[in-house]
């Protein structure tokens, strides 16, 4: 009896062994398929083409160009939208659009050259230039977006400075009990705007220097100029927020 039950247990194990083995094999296969693809996604830096496959190099280069053209078009529509809402002046918008157009035209010329290549080495050189000559993501788009930001800062600062006489008139007409607090807020408002103006001027003076050529010729100096622009831009941003807070407090007191 005991021997029979031992046999049935062994039989059961044998019956389950095959499906279990099959499942674990399939699982391992699935894992082996997943792991390399994940690793590929995170570690791949450049797609590969055969040494003499010119068309492969051209196709990949065209993808890079299209990606940059799409990013520039997005920036352009952002600038147009701000200009349409009168948040950017027409001359400010025109200057940024001009830079975008220059880069789009140059990319288009490079695409024409790349498409006509018959030699893989020359095609690879063109692809390399998409990155090294244009620096769309490293220099152009960040600089143009900074320009938009600083232009918006300047326009807001000007609008807030224009309000000073209106604020002074409102403070004069306010109850005497509130005037000390209002005057203190107004003085801080004026000082914050003056500080913002200095920072904006510094940013606007240094921004045009941030070019791909400058990055290539003197990366250290480029980094230093970028730091100056960035810190001025951020300081002006904070100053304008502080002035706006003063204005908000004054508006509450004058209600």
């Amino acid at each position, binding site marked *: 009896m005991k021997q029979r039950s031992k046999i049935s247990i062994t039989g059961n194990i044998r019956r389950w062994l095959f499906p279990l083995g099959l499942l674990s094999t399939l699982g391992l296969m699935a894992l082996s398929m997943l792991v390399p693809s994940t690793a590929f996604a995170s570690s791949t830096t450049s797609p590969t083409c055969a040494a003499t496959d010119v068309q492969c190099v051209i196709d990949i280069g065209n993808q890079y160009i299209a990606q940059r053209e799409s990013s520039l078009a997005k920036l352009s529509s952002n600038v147009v939208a701000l200009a349409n809402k009168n948040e950017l002046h027409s001359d400010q918008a025109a200057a940024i659009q001009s830079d975008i157009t220059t880069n789009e035209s140059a990319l288009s010329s490079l695409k024409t050259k790349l498409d006509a290549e018959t030699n893989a080495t020359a095609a690879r050189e063109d692809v390399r230039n998409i990155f090294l000559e244009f620096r769309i993501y490293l220099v152009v788009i960040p600089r143009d977006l900074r320009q938009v930001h600083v232009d918006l800062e300047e326009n807001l600062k000007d609008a807030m400075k224009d309000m000073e006489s209106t604020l002074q008139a409102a403070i004069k007409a306010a109850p005497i009990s509130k005037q000390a607090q209002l005057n203190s807020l107004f003085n801080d408002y004026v000082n914050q705007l003056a500080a913002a103006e200095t920072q904006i001027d510094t940013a606007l003076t240094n921004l045009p220097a941030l070019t791909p050529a400058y990055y290539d010729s003197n990366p250290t100096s480029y980094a230093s100029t970028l730091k100056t622009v960035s810190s001025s831009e951020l300081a002006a941003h904070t100053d304008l927020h502080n002035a706006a807070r003063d*204005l908000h407090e004054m508006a509450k007191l004058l209600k």
Partner: protein
Amino acid sequence: MKSIQSTSRFRQWHLIVFVIVVLTVMLVLAACGTATGSSTTHVVTSQQTQTSFNTGTQASNSQVSSLDRRVQSALKLLDNAQQNVNNANANANQDNPQVP
């Protein structure tokens, strides 16, 4: 003859006094009228000044509120622009050369 003369003088004096009294009354009335008129004018002017003063205050207060709203909305745009710069900086590594 003397009595006729004295009666005539009395009438002349009477007339002169009457004219003086009438003139005095007229002057007093005129003075009162001027004073009343100027006082009315003064009140009206004062009311007008007060009214325009209030309107001016309300106008500049509402202007300040409107400016405050405009600035608050401009600040949101400014914050978005700053965020766009930050996002662009995060994409800078896309310019690392990837030559096939």
